[in-house]
């Protein structure tokens, strides 16, 4: 890749997605774009980038963004956060939302669906306590390809063996050839939307819980801070935020603070005040 194309391409991806691609990512870019060049029937990556520069083709732009995303995800990723959700966050919501009997969860980087479906399965397991409740799980991602897979809810044998307890596989999946399809009642519990975290959040509505896991790591401090500040605005005073194992709010935003004793969970801080105890 020519230096000029590299500069154009990394800026393009940064502007479109927030993803930071340093000079050390040349190899990554080339390995992701090579299959795309074949798909678009152009001989070289340089020609592909040339096409991206000259023709404002939304289909190509979308493919390029999709190609640069890392969509890796697992059911019950890291285990602990979902134990905490079931044992701590959910009981708190059941109590605090008892009057209106509803709450909303946002998976802000839903990727191929494992995270929202994990939550949907947990809620199904706790269905007895949720009778008469309305729970929204909204899964969004910038990657169209990932969202298509999420909506289909069909996973490989490898994917259903990383993190998913066998009892839940038996309960909520059906074998389809050598793949595993998630049960319609779990699939329909999640609403998917194509959504860029760099855009305005207002259209999504308010959320009691936000899962924003393993996506901020790809952004610079400024982008991280802006996204988290805007998330805080969507949340009530007792809202909770989940980040990935390698992510934190410390030094990034003042609008969240770690929940004491609970790794990976953050509470909203009222502007100019301390977080609501809870």
């Amino acid at each position: 890749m020519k230096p000029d194309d590299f500069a154009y391409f990394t800026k393009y991806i940064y502007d479109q997605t927030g993803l930071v691609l340093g000079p050390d990512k040349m190899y990554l870019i080339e390995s992701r774009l090579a299959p795309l060049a074949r798909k678009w029937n152009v001989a070289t990556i340089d020609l592909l980038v040339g096409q991206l520069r000259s023709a404002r083709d939304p289909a190509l732009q979308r493919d390029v963004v999709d190609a640069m995303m890392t969509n890796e995800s697992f059911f019950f990723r890291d285990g602990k956060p979902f134990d905490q959700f079931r044992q701590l966050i959910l009981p708190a919501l059941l109590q605090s939302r008892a009057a209106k009997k509803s709450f909303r969860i946002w998976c802000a980087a839903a990727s191929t669906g494992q995270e929202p479906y994990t939550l949907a399965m947990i809620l199904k397991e706790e269905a007895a306590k949720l009778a008469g409740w309305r729970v929204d799980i909204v899964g969004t991602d910038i990657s169209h390809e990932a969202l298509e897979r999420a909506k289909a809810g069909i996973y490989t044998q490898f994917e259903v063996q990383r993190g998913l307890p066998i009892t839940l596989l038996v309960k909520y999946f059906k074998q389809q050839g050598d793949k595993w399809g998630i049960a319609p009642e779990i699939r329909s519990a999640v609403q998917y939307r194509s959504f860029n975290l760099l855009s305005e959040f207002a259209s999504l509505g308010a959320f009691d819980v936000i899962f924003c896991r393993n996506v901020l790591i790809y952004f610079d401090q400024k982008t991280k801070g802006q996204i988290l500040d805007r998330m805080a605005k969507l949340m009530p005073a007792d809202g909770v935020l989940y980040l990935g194992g390698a992510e934190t709010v410390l030094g990034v935003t003042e609008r969240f603070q770690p929940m004491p004793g609970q790794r990976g969970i953050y509470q909203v801080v009222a502007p100019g005040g301390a977080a609501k105890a809870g």
Partner: protein
Amino acid sequence: MKSFLVVDDSRVIRNVARRILEAFGFKIEEAADGQLALEACKRAMPDGILLDWNMPVMNGIEFLRALRATPGGNAPIVLFCTTETDMTKIQQAIEAGANEYIMKPFDSEIVESKLTQVGLL
């Protein structure tokens, strides 16, 4: 050091499993069928058992039922590890007392994820 019994009639699979489990710090014993595995368990109950289904002499599910009926036989954590991927087979295994179920082909990542789930890691 926790102990693991690897039960499979294929020496190749036993070797693969041994290498993966040893890397997680387990002390490994091997058995080539359910009968030999049961004898090994009666001598000393391992902490974990990786269990194939189809084996000569005594198969995995027969072994598991016999194990759970043996004094002290509820203690080991049993992970089936088999090419059987039929839902009815998986259910049978759970009913017989399996703690987890790995569908072959497996790799180190799957084993690690399952071991974490059952609390052996």
